[in-house]
């Protein structure tokens, strides 16, 4: 019989590595299995890494981790065809310790993070696909990989195998996700000199900027686009729910081309050289899509547990926090010598009391609302742009009259009652 471990972690993304790291640090025998050539070779992220949850795992990680720039400015654009209403915040305190968040490129970052795990004693195996969980009387006792003699055993298996989590699906923890529960995001890394980035985004060295773009960036469909500054490259991407893409017959690469050539965006990336093209599914079902996260001998963490807050583009932090919570539960379960569902449900309880599920619950109807009522992205963004244009154009009309006209145009376009309904519905979805 094959070797038995305390823990097998499937996946070497932020969730898997956080879990493996914490388990190994606490003396557990950990085997981590990654299907890619190396950690970070398969996964995709827009590129914002939050300081808080990472710091809880590795204090002062920014002193050695391969990060791009600390983000000092976050901008939000409500973009129409030839205009943008924007707001944002720039604060230099974010450019100093302890920082708020960073732009990162996942390939170097994940490799670095996985190496920290190896230093703690994690046995990491790359280029290996886990085909299924091995079960005995309903209890997960190990995994079967695609390699010869590929069975390995453990007290507990952590599924951090990403958004599709075929392994959790095999266990019956979730069904195939519906097209409105996942977004398809495509992105490019565009090489651009440091000086050009600093000039175009009004930054200094070691200052980063993020722009989230709503409205015409997705041709009015439910989704967002983003532009993040790295040291000498830019991440630009766009995603919409799969259902919107199907309904509007959008091709993801067309959408990215549309964004890149949009007059509001083009000058920012002009002259850049395309270095990488990536595409991935993002779990956006939120609270309602979270599957069973603990079973007999098994836990789910990160994207595999659908832990993404689409409204605040938070995911990697939730992955890390959930991975750590899973580890803490496993450490306690080991002390109890009990890896049954009842024992491992400690993870579920911690997760549900944490910011993760609380945040997902707060926005539990948001995606659904915006998906079901497309007017927010399709109509309100252009309306807002027209209003701003009217208000700021100096044409001799008294400002008070302008305000009246703007209000009138709102109510006449959507109708007063419908508009009040829309506002109430939106408020309810995000309150």
């Amino acid at each position, binding site marked *: 019989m*094959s070797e038995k471990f305390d823990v097998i972690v499937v996946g070497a993304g932020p969730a898997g590595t956080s879990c493996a790291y914490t388990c190994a640090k606490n003396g557990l025998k950990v085997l981590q299995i990654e299907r890619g050539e190396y950690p970070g070779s398969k996964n995709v992220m827009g590129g914002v890494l939050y300081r808080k949850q990472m710091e809880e795992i590795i204090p002062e990680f920014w002193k050695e981790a391969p990060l791009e720039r600390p983000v000092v400015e976050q901008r939000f654009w409500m973009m129409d065809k030839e205009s943008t209403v924007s707001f944002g915040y720039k604060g230099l305190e974010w450019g100093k310790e302890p920082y708020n968040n960073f732009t990162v490129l996942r390939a170097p970052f994940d490799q670095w993070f996985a190496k920290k795990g190896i230093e703690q004693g994690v046995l990491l195996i790359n280029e290996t696909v886990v085909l299924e969980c091995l079960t005995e009387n309903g209890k997960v006792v190990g995994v079967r*990989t695609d*390699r*010869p003699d590929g069975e*390995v055993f453990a007290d507990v298996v952590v599924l951090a195998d990403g958004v599709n989590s075929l392994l959790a699906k095999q266990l019956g923890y979730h069904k195939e996700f519906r097209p409105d529960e996942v977004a398809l995001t495509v992105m490019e890394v565009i090489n651009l000199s440091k000086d050009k980035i600093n000039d175009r985004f009004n930054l200094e060295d070691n200052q980063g900027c993020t722009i989230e773009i709503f409205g015409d960036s997705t041709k009015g469909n439910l989704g967002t686009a983003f532009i993040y500054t790295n040291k000498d490259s830019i991440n630009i991407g766009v995603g919409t729910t799969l259902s919107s893409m199907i309904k509007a017959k959008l091709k993801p690469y067309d959408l990215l081309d549309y964004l890149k050539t949009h007059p509001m965006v083009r000058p920012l990336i002009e002259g850049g050289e395309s270095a990488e093209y990536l595409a991935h599914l993002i779990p956006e079902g939120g609270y309602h899509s979270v599957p069973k996260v603990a079973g007999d001998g098994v836990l789910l963490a990160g994207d595999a547990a659908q832990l993404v807050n689409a409204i605040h583009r938070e995911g990697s932090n939730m992955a890390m926090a959930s991975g750590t919570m899973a580890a803490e539960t496993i450490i306690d379960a080991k002390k109890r010598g009990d890896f049954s569902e009842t024992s491992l449900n400690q993870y579920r309880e911690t997760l549900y009391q944490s910011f993760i599920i609380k945040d997902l619950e707060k926005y539990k109807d948001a995606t659904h609302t915006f998906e079901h009522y497309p007017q927010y992205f399709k109509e309100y963004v252009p309306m807002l742009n027209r209003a701003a244009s009217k208000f700021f154009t100096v044409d001799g009309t008294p400002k008070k009259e302008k305000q009246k006209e703007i209000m009138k145009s709102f109510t006449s376009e959507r109708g007063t009652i419908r508009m009040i309904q829309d506002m109430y519905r939106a408020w309810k979805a995000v309150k």
Partner: protein
Amino acid sequence: MHIVVCVKQVPDTKIIKINPKTNTLDRRSAPAILNPYDAHAVQEAVKLTKTIGKGTISVLSMGPPQAVAVIKKSIEIGADRGFLISDRAFAGADTLATSYALSKALERISKDMPVDLIICGKHAIDGDTGQVGPGIARRLDIPPVTNVIEVTELNEVEKTIQIKRKITNGYELIQAQVPCLLTVEKEINSIEYSPMPNMIKAARYEPVIWSVNDLEEVDRTQLGLKGSPTIVGKMFTPPKPEGGKRLEGNAEEQVKQLMELLNDKKELFVSR
């Protein structure tokens, strides 16, 4: 049967970029991998010990500490143990100094366990010289057998090995005495998908790392940059050829056309 396989960590030249300003390899642009020919060398050692039913496979590499990765990779393929010689004194070595250093390490290895066979890749994909294997054989005074495409028989009692070598117009069957040194072509075998226990062993494995002081009777003037008579005069990327003409027809017709073309351009043959 104790087989030692010499392996090298190389940049993946399939995807490496050339810095157009300095004309040197931009090593950051490509991941470091186990030289593909060396992977086949390890695989052949695995195959041979499997056929015989017993044996030990050691791998040996020279390089910076991160070259441990190629030893781990060799363990994945099925090697039993690994040695890395790593020291500033070895840095900047050309093929002459490299084969000297490796032969010293091989002497050290054979002291504990006599070596029956050494296998190397045909050449490394970053240097393409194919000199280190024969260089080691010469220094250890054992026969070098290059361009091996098949080991047809290994007789432990008679201490002989039958080998198929690739030559320009076919192949050659030869017999050699063991110990000897083989350098192998890729077609000698196909790399098998490593079994899970090997993967676990490799993840856990920590090779023996020797510095120059761990080797015996070393002439330091023959090591590293000092021991390397090779001087790289210039490196450049050849410009892409433009234009050109493809000659069609059978061999005779093509030769005729070519002669006509050459006759028309007599100026090309004026000696300078």
